[in-house]
């Protein structure tokens, strides 16, 4: 590698920043520049909602102190890229400046989906993805009597929680028959739906947005649903998914589809140009249970890690391990390990589901016909990542997983030992040689009841 090679990364999200950091760890001489018009310093996008709700200040979402970048010689450029001239390896900024590169990494992330709804560009209508969106939302939610959120996914429920903090009543329109039902099985989806209603969110399933109605000042004043109901509201959150943020790259020699097309080395059709994170689209999915566009924090991090290695000259390709993800639905934590689709073929897949009588704690495990574990979902309690990574990789028997569930428990000390109830339920449903854990002395002492 020549020492004056210049790697330019567009986008300072988790993918771009992880790539820059990995590259710097492996190569001391390369010049690294990270470009972002959104914010000078890297922040955690997933924490934006907590800034709105006053749990944190924006500075707290920045994982590294400001001196970190200079110390690690990662140059930060605060500007928006307007155009890329791939033939001469040059970028044009909105400010009119230029920058040349040797290697270009596109890590521009996503933007909220808009499906051409009438009125979707009115004042008071917005999605939530960027720092600017958050600032806009602060602005848009002043003096609001009611809000409507369209689209049943993670950003939607976060937005609902944010609005609830401001004591703004929320109507939540979900096109499907259950919340996040393309990801969550029926029982889990219902569990989250119940919890949303417990938080006084007016959840409307099987309901779609027809039109957003304007007041004379081009501000939203109501919406109309497909079923014809008109709901007065001054804020509309559009959270029906996100789409790669690559408009400035369309109609160039770069091959794009929904996202920038890449192989498993994140190489695009143009040499020395790479794409990672939300905006990259693999030619084919990395694994049978994965998508061509991976829009998850963790995959962004892994893309960045891997490309950092590649740019330092190491011969590696993207090989994700066992799938995992997590989220928090208002007060309920959710983790998933391995493969648990919303629907499965009951001929080939066995499902074990346990739900606590309170209706906020649940566990699901899918197994193949031989009883080997495929994946788990857990709600309202915590399970150890390493444990399931190993169990799923090594294809443990479901009954072995359940027998050792106490080892997998990641709940804080003194919490109710749900794993005991799960073991009992599994034993009565599937039989087998399962030793149900005993309560420890401490658990008995403090009357830990499930």
């Amino acid at each position, binding site marked *: 590698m020549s020492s004056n090679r210049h790697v330019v990364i567009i986008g300072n999200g988790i993918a771009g920043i992880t790539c820059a950091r990995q590259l710097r760890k492996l190569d001391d001489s390369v010049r690294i520049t990270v470009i972002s018009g959104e914010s000078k310093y890297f922040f*955690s996008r997933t924490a934006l909602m907590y800034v709105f709700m*006053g749990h944190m200040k924006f500075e707290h979402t920045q*994982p590294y102190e400001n001196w970190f970048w200079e110390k690690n010689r990662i140059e930060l450029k605060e500007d928006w890229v307007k155009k890329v001239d791939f033939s001469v390896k040059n970028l044009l900024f909105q400010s009119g400046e230029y920058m040349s590169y040797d290697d270009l990494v596109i890590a521009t992330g996503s933007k909220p989906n808009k499906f051409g709804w009438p009125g979707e560009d009115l004042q008071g209508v917005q999605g939530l993805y960027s720092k600017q969106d958050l600032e806009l939302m602060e602005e848009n939610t002043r003096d609001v009597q009611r809000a409507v959120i369209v689209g049943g996914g993670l950003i939607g429920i976060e937005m609902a929680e944010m609005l609830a*903090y401001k004591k703004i009543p929320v109507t939540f329109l979900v096109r499907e028959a259950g919340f996040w039902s393309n990801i969550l099985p029926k029982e889990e989806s219902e569990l989250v739906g119940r919890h949303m209603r417990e938080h006084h969110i007016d959840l409307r399933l099987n309901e779609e947005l027809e039109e957003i109605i304007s007041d004379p000042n081009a501000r939203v004043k109501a919406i109309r649903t497909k079923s014809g109901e008109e709901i007065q509201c001054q804020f509309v959150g559009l959270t029906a998914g996100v789409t790669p943020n690559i408009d400035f790259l369309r109609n160039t020699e770069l091959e794009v589809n929904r996202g920038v097309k890449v192989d498993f080395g994140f190489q695009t059709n143009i040499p020395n140009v790479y794409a990672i994170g939300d905006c990259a689209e693999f030619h084919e999915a990395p694994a049978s249970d994965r998508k061509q566009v991976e829009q998850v924090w*963790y995959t962004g991090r892994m893309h960045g890690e891997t490309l950092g*290695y590649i740019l330092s000259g190491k011969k590696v390709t993207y090989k994700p*391990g066992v799938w995992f993800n*997590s989220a928090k639905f208002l007060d309920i934590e959710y983790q998933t390990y391995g493969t648990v689709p919303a629907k499965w073929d009951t001929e080939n897949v066995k499902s074990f589901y346990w739900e606590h009588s309170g209706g906020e704690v649940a566990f699901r495990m899918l197994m193949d016909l031989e009883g080997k574990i495929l994946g788990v979902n857990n709600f309202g309690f915590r399970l*150890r990542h390493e444990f399931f990574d190993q169990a799923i990789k090594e294809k443990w028997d479901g009954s072995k997983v359940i027998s050792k569930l106490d080892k997998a428990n990641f709940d*804080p000390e003194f919490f109710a030992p749900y794993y005991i109830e799960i073991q009992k339920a599994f034993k009565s449903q599937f039989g087998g040689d399962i030793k149900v854990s005993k309560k420890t002395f401490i658990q008995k002492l403090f009357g830990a009841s499930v």
Partner: protein
Amino acid sequence: MKIIQSIGVGLFLIGLAIFTVMPFLGNYTLSEELVLANTKDIHQEKMAEILKPMYGETYASNFSFISAFNENFSAYNDALKEESKWDEVIWDDYSFPLTQSSLSSPVRDNPWLFFGLSIGLAVLGGLMYNLPKHQDEPAGVKNNGIFHSSMKNRGWMGMITGAYLILFYIILYWFPAYIVNQVWMVTPLSMILSGNPASQWFLYGTIYTLAIIVMGVRMFRKYRGNKYQQLRTASVMFFQTAFAFLIPEILVLLNQPYFDFKNIWPLDYDFFYDYQIETFLSSGGVGMFMLIWGILLIVIGVPTFTYFFGKRWYCSWVCGCGGLAETVGDPYRQLSDKSLKAWKYERVIVHSVLVLAVVMTALTIANYFSGFALLENATNQLHSFYGFAIGSVFAGVVGTGFYPFMGNRVWCRFGCPLAAYLGLVQRFKSRFRITTNGGQCISCGNCSTHCEMGIDVRWYAQRGQEIVRASCVGCGVCSSVCPRGVLKLENGSTENRINEMPIIIGNDSIKINA
């Protein structure tokens, strides 16, 4: 519910207002009998003469009384100092007992009434505010609006609260003569508990304990559904009420030395002072037990318990300073400085205090056993310097008064020599650590923001690294605020407890050699 809470706030403010105006009530008349009754034998004659001009005169406020006292008293002392007659100078401060005994005020006449109107109303109001909190919300983390609150985000309410606390500590430590009314107010309570009249320290202990109880109730509401936080809070409430407040007073009632069984040297810095050791040695079996118990805690209790459970067994389950920080200070925990720079300062300062405490104690013990041949009375100067700089300014004024400015663990983090000692054990030989859940961290920063000890928890969590830090008091809040369930406090094997290599899971493209 809102109404009850509003009334609660109102009652609290009324109680606080009455407590605050109390020093301005009543008048002060000094007589020769009072001087004779409240001064040491060797000073009686002199003091009676010095204060003669004040006899029979009625002072309408403590300001005029205390200034008259100081005028007469320092005129005498200054004259002697000028002539360098150091051994004739009266070094004892009689302003507190004389002001106290000269007072005639409605508070002194009706102590229980004023106790009820000030502390009683404040406690009642506090409970009325705290008990209905979060009533119609599901259990879960209740951090909404902290950084939008002027109380909890260094706004004007926080500034006023901090200033009030600082002022209170300054008066309590150095100008107690101004709060003799409040001391009279708690005197009947003190008589019941210990059979002795109250001092300003009894007043402080009473307020301290009640504050922990009222704000402990707030913790129960805030951390509803979190067993770890609930048990921990119950524990500090219990240890403060029983061990720090009631048991020492009852010991006095039973003619035994005043002793707080959970207070450990070097936090309890006067444990080895000559007069303390005299007290232990002259109090028979119970005194001997106290001395041995105290030493056992230092040399066996701390290392053993810390080996098994980390320093949390003390700092966030037992300690009185920790108890105040975890209850009264909880609304301010997010204000601690997390910068690397702060950590650097912290390590130097807290260990310097430990060294200072050890040196002071070593000199004191050596001096004691050499029959004061080594340094004579010079240890007293050392004691008063340490008592002033560390015991009063750092632990009291800064430690508590700065809650609303720098977070609730300033003292524990930067000043407490016992925390430094426990921390050394925790860092190098303990089963305790905070484990992170593989690759599940999203770097959101809730853990770091709400860490009262200023630990950048996220730095470790996002690398999948286990967290072993000398300062961690194991409060468990990082674990409870984590939206992805990434953090867990654990006592496990000491092998591989400190893993320098990250263990991010889920990416098979690259291999990080562990």
